[in-house]
């Protein structure tokens, strides 16, 4: 190998090593930089803590902001949340219609998902909390009663819940939509915690 070729090969190897570093760094940055991820698309039509039924997939009204890869048999709703100041409470009743919930943390993924099959006595009762809120809830738990609600620790304070109901036959679309609309979601008032509330100035 001539000196020239060796020198160029050395530069090429350096360049490729740098390329690998650039690749890894930019891959990790994509979720943070993606301006049109699901949460950003939903922000245009769904306010936080309000159950919002999404237009059917491919609907021109979504202005190209609809979520791709949706099941045409599913009626979908979302509830975007921010649990910084209060937990999110979500309640649904199991019926004959397939109903499922997925809890999304933008850039991280789905942190929990369940279907109506895991409903206890016909009810789904979920509360999404931060670590501090979870501790406050646990402090107030009665000791002789089991906790009936499902408590989910949010990996990030903001996120959204996707709610799917399936219309197994074309005539069941209205029923599926009614199932989705019957889901309640909203901020939950925390029980007053002695000490912490009064210690706050102002």
């Amino acid at each position, binding site marked *: 190998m001539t000196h020239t070729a060796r020198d160029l090969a050395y530069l090429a190897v350096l360049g490729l090593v740098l390329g690998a*570093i650039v690749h890894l760094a930019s891959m990790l940055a994509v979720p943070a930089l*993606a301006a049109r991820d699901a949460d950003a698309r939903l922000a245009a039509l769904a306010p936080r803590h309000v159950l919002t039924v999404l237009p059917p997939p491919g609907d021109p009204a979504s202005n190209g902001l609809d979520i791709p890869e949706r099941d045409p048999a599913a009626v979908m709703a979302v509830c975007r949340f921010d649990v910084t100041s209060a937990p999110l409470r979500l309640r649904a009743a199991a019926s004959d219609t397939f109903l499922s919930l997925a809890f999304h943390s933008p850039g991280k993924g789905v942190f929990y998902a369940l*279907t109506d099959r895991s409903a206890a006595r016909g009810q789904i009762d979920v509360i999404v909390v931060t670590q501090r809120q979870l501790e406050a809830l646990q402090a107030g738990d009665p000791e002789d009663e089991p906790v009936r609600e499902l408590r989910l620790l949010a990996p990030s304070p903001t996120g959204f819940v996707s709610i799917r109901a399936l219309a197994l036959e074309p005539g069941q679309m209205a029923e599926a939509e009614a199932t989705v609309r019957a889901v309640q979601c909203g901020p939950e008032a925390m029980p007053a915690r002695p000490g912490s509330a009064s210690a706050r100035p102002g």
Partner: protein
Amino acid sequence: MPVRSTPVAAAAEVPRGAWRVMLVLTLGAATGLFATWSAITGSTGFGVVSAGPWEASPRTGALDADPYTRAVVARRGLMPLGLGEGIAFVARRDDSGAPLVASCDYRVAGMVPQARVWTLSAQDPEGRPLANPVGRHGMTSAEVVRDAAGAVQVAVSREARAGNWLPLGEAPHFALVLRLYDTAVSGSGSVLEAAALPRIQRERCG
């Protein structure tokens, strides 16, 4: 002393000083960003479970997805099925490996894995439903007619067919999506048995 090319000739060919730095930086930025771009514009590459022509990325529905899967989900604005909800299998090719084209007719035949509910739908390469005159974009386990053994046969074509028919639209290319809800299929391995999912056979091409 080893024989070397003359210093004069080498100086003419190898970039010097700042040019060497520029060359390395340019090469690094170009290859690194190109690799990122091709990774996020392709399908979710890592953690893909395949069974014949069907592919699923079960980790898109969990918190421990790899950075490649997360990047694709974020860039495309996907709202994936959570692992506790079900799993979605996508086919962009038929059994022989040829891309699915809407000018051909296909037959999706075989058993569907155990699930409380499943749906089979067609979508365009961007993941939107295929516009078609009938306004039907998929079929479900409740609608489909099965044979005595429980196997299904679905005709996928632009023209109407008797029996189980999934209409295609004007878009030249399409993908099939099989979603299993409340299923034991977890896709935790890297390969599912191909026989567990229906075959996709090309028939007549128009």
